[in-house]
């Protein structure tokens, strides 16, 4: 579920980074108030543990894709929401730096998707509520399962929204959502099982760790006003954009079905594309330059006007760019090889 830099536009990436920074700063403040010295190594260890488990991909049958657990619920339950969120941020930063998994610009979006919904929504609202009458194995299981499912569904949904808003792919919103949500339902079940198993085990063998993690962060102490405030901000970022999107896109599914059926009614997709492209051109330093109508099989396109607005590949530019592009790459490679040779020679001399 880690988003890559390449999928995000600077505006979406920057907004998510700002949101994450805000939540992290708040978490830091909360943590400094009641910092337990014992908790620091625990945070590191659980972080390393989640890091390792995110590296294990399990196949999802029938999709040809694979998933890994997010670990946000485990962090929230064992460490509390604030430390859990910060630990998630640390894990994702290490993954972005060392493995190129996720990215530095996508860092904010990833922390938000994996950490915010689990630590600040699913944990206080679902898990805490289900275990409010005391912690039993059954309640741990139910709470972990439900909150992991909800947390992942919210997270994967915001991946879809962020991707579509960034406009780097052609995936229609509904198709992407239909791909993402069921897959993350499957992942969520595995995540729920793992979370429940680990929490139950820790509770049986070392209840004091669990207590320490939970003490200081019961629901009463998570100030609902602040959580709601964060929710409002998140709503503005995600939901507001979403409703705008929904209103401008009549029915994406219909569109893709029509497309596969062979009818090319471009009008249905025109508005959302222009909307997305307007958004895109805001983010670009220069609006897409040069647009030539491309050769279409069907010359009688009624949607020519809305087509006009879509940034197309300038045929002349992209085709002729092959020569210049190839040359650019050649220059880069030759420069690299030359410098390496010179360096080697220098070393041989000295």
């Amino acid at each position, binding site marked *: 579920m880690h988003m890559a830099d390449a999928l995000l536009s600077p505006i979406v990436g920057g907004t998510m980074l700002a949101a994450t920074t805000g939540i992290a700063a708040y978490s830091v403040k909360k943590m400094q108030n009641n910092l337990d010295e014992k908790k*620091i190594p625990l945070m*590191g260890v659980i972080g390393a543990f989640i890091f390792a488990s995110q590296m294990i991909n399990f196949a999802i049958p029938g999709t040809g894709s694979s998933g890994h657990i997010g670990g946000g619920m485990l962090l929230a339950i064992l460490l509390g929401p604030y430390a859990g969120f910060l630990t998630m941020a*640390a894990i994702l930063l290490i993954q972005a730096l*060392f*493995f190129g998994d996720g990215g530095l610009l996508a860092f904010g979006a990833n922390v938000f998707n994996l950490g915010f919904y689990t630590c600040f929504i699913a944990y206080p609202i679902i898990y805490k509520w289900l275990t409010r009458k005391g912690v039993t194995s059954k309640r741990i299981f139910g709470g972990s399962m439900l909150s992991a499912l909800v947390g992942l569904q919210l997270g994967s949904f915001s991946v879809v929204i962020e991707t579509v808003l960034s*406009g780097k792919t052609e995936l229609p919103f509904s198709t992407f959502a239909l791909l993402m949500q069921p897959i993350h339902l499957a992942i969520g079940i595995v995540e729920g099982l793992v979370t429940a198993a680990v929490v139950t085990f820790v509770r049986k063998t070392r209840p004091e760790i669990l207590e320490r993690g939970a003490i200081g962060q019961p629901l009463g102490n998570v100030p609902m006003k602040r959580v709601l405030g964060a929710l409002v901000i998140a709503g503005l970022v995600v939901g507001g954009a979403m409703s705008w999107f929904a209103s401008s896109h009549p029915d994406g599914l219909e569109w893709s079905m029509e497309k596969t059926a062979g009818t090319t009614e471009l009008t249905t997709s025109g508005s959302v594309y222009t909307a997305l492209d307007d958004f895109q051109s805001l983010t670009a330093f220069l609006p897409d330059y040069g647009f030539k109508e491309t050769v279409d099989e069907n010359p009688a396109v009624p949607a020519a006007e809305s087509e006009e607005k879509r*940034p197309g590949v300038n045929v002349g530019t992209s085709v002729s760019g092959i020569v210049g592009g190839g040359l650019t790459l050649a220059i880069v490679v030759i420069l690299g090889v030359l410098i390496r040779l010179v360096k080697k020679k220098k070393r041989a001399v000295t």
Partner: protein
Amino acid sequence: MATIKNVLFNMGVLDDLAMKETSIHRIHPLIKLLTTVVYLTVVVSFGKNEISNLLPFFLYPVLIMVFAEIPVVPILNRMVLVTPFIIGIGILNPFFEVQTVVVFGTSISQGWFTFVSLLLKSALTVAVSLMLIATTGMNQLAAALRMLKVPKIFVLQLLLTYRYISVLIEELSRMVRAYSLRAPGQKGIHPRVWGSFVGQLLLRTYDRGSRVYESMNARGFSGEYHRGNISKLKGKDIAYFLSWSLLFMLARLYDLPLLIEALIFSMGGE
């Protein structure tokens, strides 16, 4: 298991690379971090159809690789490993995009352009993130984050998580070794004990991690690594940052490959 050991190995490779002493390694960590951020922002700001525009941006990772003496293979390996997700999302572009473009007489979906553009962006951004850590190292990067006023508790958390990954994986390999000695001839770990195995791993690592942390405290650790060797920003560092940023901006504003091409054709025409 193999993949997890691989993780440790990979991190070790990047750690070792960060220990080198080259002109790039000596540049101030904060400057390298900022340059990377500028680079990433500029690269992802390109529209979804841009291809030739992106090519000049290969200059930065290639030069860093050469000057910092970073081997190509481990970086390429990493880049290949993270591409499936990008391919999975981008491969549908050619089918969802209805516009077609004629290239060399055949008409292809414009989606192929957006797909290639996406792949290029992915390659560039991943490569540059890896270069950052391979030339800077975790401790220096943490110091750079502190200079950016990132709270101590987060930086500490980052460093400890990073260090404890190797503690965890060493603990894991110890447990796997012990298990395989107790269960000769058995392939892997029996599913029945997965739960307690993982739980034990967590507890053992926690105990070990606590001891590590206590002994760090006993030796005067106060939540921060004191790095005497990070110097103040020098003119050289600022010049490095400014010249790269200028280059990125130029490559963003002008399609350099097209200019090169125009230059060649105009010379040929005369």
